[in-house]
């Protein structure tokens, strides 16, 4: 009964490749997020969608493109991967954009070699 699930959990890939991380929430929430945790454990928001609409788009390279086919899913596609993209990516969701507790997925460990 996982609330926010991400796949894959671990991903090792070469520079220049394109990869996707999928996220699904079964909480019936309207808002979903992607956060990045870098090697220093610093957490920063990347994107947020509310009912499939982009509402937060932080300063993130264009190589990162979120896609929300429906409000229960928010996938992250990364083109032309670079070494600096190595990080843990957390998906999260909340009831509403200005709403309640934000629930996080288990994270996807991306390593670019």
């Amino acid at each position: 009964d996982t609330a926010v699930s991400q796949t894959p959990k671990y991903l090792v890939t070469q520079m220049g490749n394109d990869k996707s991380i999928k996220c699904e929430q079964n909480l019936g929430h309207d808002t979903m997020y992607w956060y990045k945790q870098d090697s220093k454990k610093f957490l920063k928001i990347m994107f947020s969608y509310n009912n499939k609409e982009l509402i937060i788009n932080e300063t993130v390279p264009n190589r990162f493109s979120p896609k929300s086919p429906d409000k229960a899913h928010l996938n992250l596609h990364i083109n032309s991967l670079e070494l600096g993209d190595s990080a843990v990516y957390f998906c999260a969701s909340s009831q509403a954009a200005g709403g309640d507790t934000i629930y996080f997925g288990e994270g996807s460990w991306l390593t670019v070699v």
Partner: protein
Amino acid sequence: AQRVTQPEKLLSVFKGAPVELKCNYSYSGSPELFWYVQYSRQRLQLLLRHISRESIKGFTADLNKGETSFHLKKPFAQEEDSAMYYCALRKTSGSRLTFGEGTQLTVNP
């Protein structure tokens, strides 16, 4: 713009000792403050939010608007409290969480 500062990157205490994880924020309005915890290689979990004024796992945190602080405290630390702790701020009507840099707490036996 809002900002959250956790001055201690690492904090080490012995089991049974009191622990305080510091958090200071800067924001001109009335924020919502949270503490999230991340146990080793696990997801972030909400520990506390200031509006709930509750105690979870023995932890408490009081919002001090005068000092713009939201320090996390526990009178008697346990080994299972060892984890990464993040203080986070959200505008009252906003959605994004702004996180501090995190404090790695280690409770030694």
